[in-house]
């Protein structure tokens, strides 16, 4: 295994796990225990919280007519976090601290919830206008207010 492979290994593992989640959920419409344990192992404690967000159907996939998409995740206190499809970023403090600053975690619970809900097809769908989408992407508005 080359150094490059080693470098990207953890994210590759995470990627593969999410694929497994999608595959398994499509086949069995449930996530078996060992996959849950694997998620917990790779994503740490945010796996549990992300699954809780999934259970509460807190993830909304917002799409505009021009094809732009973003995920909006309703946090526990009702704050809405916008996560992007093209890169990993979440405005939540945990992302800033554990992912960006400490590099302790691959993702925050909101991004993981967006991934998992996408893999399981459990995200709410919402279509917004391009104008609304641009304000969502620039962090100014929440789609659910409309």
């Amino acid at each position, binding site marked *: *295994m080359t150094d490059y*492979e*080693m*470098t990207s*290994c*953890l*994210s590759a*593992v995470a*990627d*593969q796990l999410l*694929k*497994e989640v999608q595959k398994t*959920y*499509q*086949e069995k*419409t*449930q*996530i078996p*225990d*060992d*996959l*849950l*344990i*694997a*998620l*917990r192992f*790779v994503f740490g404690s945010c796996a*549990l919280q992300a*699954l*809780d967000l*999934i*259970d*509460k159907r807190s993830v909304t996939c917002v*799409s*505009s007519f*021009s*094809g732009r998409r973003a995920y909006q995740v309703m946090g*526990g*206190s009702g*704050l809405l976090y916008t996560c992007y*499809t*093209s890169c*990993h*970023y979440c405005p*939540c*403090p*945990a992302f800033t*601290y*554990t992912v960006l*600053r*400490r*590099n*302790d*975690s691959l993702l925050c619970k909101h991004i993981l919830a967006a991934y998992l809900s*996408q893999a*399981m*097809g459990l*995200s709410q*769908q919402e*279509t917004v206008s391009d104008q609304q989408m641009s304000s969502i992407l620039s962090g100014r508005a929440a789609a659910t207010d409309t």
Partner: protein
Amino acid sequence: MSFQRKRKKYSKDIKCILFPDDDVKVGARKMGIEPSIITNSASNSWERCGDSFLNTPLIKNLSSSGKKWQHVRQQSPAQAQGGGPHYEEEEPVHIAWSSSDSELSDGEAQAKQPAPPPPSHTGAQQHSRPRGPAASKQSYSRALRRLCTETHCPDDLLKIDPDSDSEVADDVEEENISECGSERYIVEPNQSFPKLTTAEDPDISDYPSDEEGDSADTPTQSCLEAVAVKGGTRSVSDWVRSAQAALQTPQKQTTKNAKTPEDSHKKKITFQRGGLAERLNRLQSRQRSAISFWRHQSISCTNRSSAVHKPGVLVLEVLSVQEESCMQMALCEHHPPATDQHRPPSNTSITTADQDNLSATDHTLPPSGPVRARVLVLFNKETVGQLAPAPGDVIYVYPPWQSLMIDGQHNTIILNTHFSQKVYSDTKQASRVLVPVVKCSPYSLARTFHQVEFNKTLPVGHGIVQKVSAQSLCCIGGSVTRRSSRWDSLLEAIEGLGQAGPLGRGVEVVVQRVYCTPVREQSARASLKSRVLGRSPTVPPSVQNSKNRLCALVQDSYGMFSVVQLHLLPSEDQLHLYSSKWQGRTCILRAIKVVQRVTRERYSRLFSLIDSLWPPPMSLKIDGGTQNVHNDSRPKGPAPSFCYFLSGQESSVEPVEGEPVSTLYLRPTVQTLRDILECELSCHCCSFVATVIHSRIQYHSGDVAQVPGEVWLIVTDPSLQQPEVPPCRRTLAVCMTTSCVLTSSVAKAISTPGVCYMSFRDAVKEHGVILCVEQSVVQLQPLVCCPQTESQGGAVSGSFPQTLQQASSQPVRLDPLSPETSPNSLCTVTGRIVSVDEDTAYSWPICNMCGSDRLETAPQKTKAFHCVACDSLVDRPTVKMHLEVFINCSTVKESTVKIKLQQSTIKSLLNAASPGQEFPGYEVENVLGRELGPLSSYVRMVTRKPTLWISLEEICL
């Protein structure tokens, strides 16, 4: 170990944190500024630190190691001395260790204000002149107190819980984070504080700033010598005592503080019941206790050699270790035990090796041969803490571990390595211990996971939104009606459904019945009421607004039943549509949720229907078998004692194309009323076609007005009317409960006078009364039997309508009144009037045009009325009469029979009493003794105690 080395090591772990003042000082010192200024500010800094020592209880136990003592001595005198050029160089270092970042502002505040008691001892005073031993003791106890209080400082940092569930908490944390914004303040939550405490002695004494380099040692030594001269033995022993306290106290704090990050996880809000999070939480806690138990066991058990021979144990030799975001990845060589059986890789790329599945443990690992397989093993932070994997080590990984194959890569990844044990360390370990693990740079945030999915759903350049809706994802593989993609067992499907949401994969069932249930009580009945009363409705007719939910009783090939609650029907006539489309056919159920599990005891009426479908006409599958067993002699057992209520949408039921009516389907058996009456079963399900000869709606007093309740229908059929057969009841009462849908056509038919024909499907005969319940379908039966209805499963059909038609030409026979007559039934009565209920005998005029009783005396004419309802002059009002009489009936002896007579009967009675006069009024005596009957009457009430008392109402058939 030399001081130098230790200091260097810790300086890596603990960043040099200086007071803001100290930064200036260090700089100033470098620039060669006058030492006295530095002394002052440095002693200020120390003073802040030293205050903390004041209240610390002095611990008399002096049993700590001599080494520590030495460090303390090195430290303490220097602080006590305060002044002097040597001290200046060391001072910033001490403070840097002891005061944590988050306390900085506090420290500053305290430095500006007079320090807490005793306030007179400012740092400047202490350090500016040499003090006696007592003073130094006092100042050190203060210093100790400060140290102790400030050891709480890291606690604040430790409390940072980046994974906190609550965003509010996150926000608070953000503040904390921003407070310690500069990189040097970042402290590892789990490790930093223990390190701080274990490292305290050398660090307190000689934590230099990095710039000082090696020259730091010499001043310390000279400082010590100075102390020995100036402080004297007594003060040193005091310092030792206080320093001992300093050494001890933080230890206690450590144990307390170390729990903080763990504890902060326990403030969890409750997870949704049956959710994924709840399941993981349960698994997690189970795993945690398993790990701690295993660790306890693995410490006590030293027999390692035997472990190799246990199946499922991975024997790995570490080749290299890298760290990425608090996980360590070890590239290892897999040494398979000789006994291992290797199997081809399974379909799924993630597999778990556990104790129950030991045979499958190694199958995902590449086979070993001359070239040993390499695997990549992931260790989480806790395991790394225990294991400290390093190249050359041999590590056993005990099951359950998991292996994951990444698409396009050859190496297997081993996950879930909680049960790992180092069995061999490289001999060169000692020299290797300081070699840090290579840390990978963080992965690129622009590299999103699950690329396939994103690319698939993001059309570039097309102005079309492609939604990945819940359904489309759920139904991938499900919408394809391949047999293999379906379940054939409802129970399996429901179990598979788990708590994960709607059922994506289809389950094959046979729709036995389609019916609908009313969603709201008030609906059809409200309009019916207005029609019956013949008034303009006070409540607008709400038949159109009535909501009926479509339901289907389905059965799988194992015999299990479920009720699927589907969408609301916009119009009740559509029931017929769905019946013909679904009933009797094999359908695929999709996107179903479990609503409730119900048992026979609670839903006896539903189970009456299920019992009528049992035993099934074909042999059922048995659990575990996939093939139909064609062995009809095998007993089918009792009907299921429970079933599930499921919910879904219209699209949830999809008939399998091209399949005829299923062999499992049992169509409703139409019985004659005589058959039903003669049935011995106390509670059973029945279907019949009958003539409704009379109907009665019972009202319940509601909040505002009377709420229509049950509808009683008096039915008969030719089997009851035939004169030649042995005597039997001629009519039968059917009660339509409020849970049975009364369609508008049925409501209209029963509210209009005259007989009508109706089909009753799946009514329940309960204790002699036929009830139409939730599952029953009551439909108007066209008198002309069209052959089309024969093929449709929805309506009960047969040869009865024709017979009914023939029978309808003859007058309906009723049972004579008898002591056994039940209420809500019809009978004929003959008798002699013995008394008149004079309290209820009265007459009143009504409008001869519209029938309204709202008449006013006309102002112009004395004998005329003005009708308020139709605004017309009523010259000759119709006179309505109400008369109830008691009769002596020959068929019912020793009882009171009261009958409310109809208008025509009253008239004939009175006219006969006083012929020649049109409206004479009447005398009671003229009526008494008159013979009545035979009259058709409806039994309103029967009271049997203390004596038989029957209230009848004459009806017109």
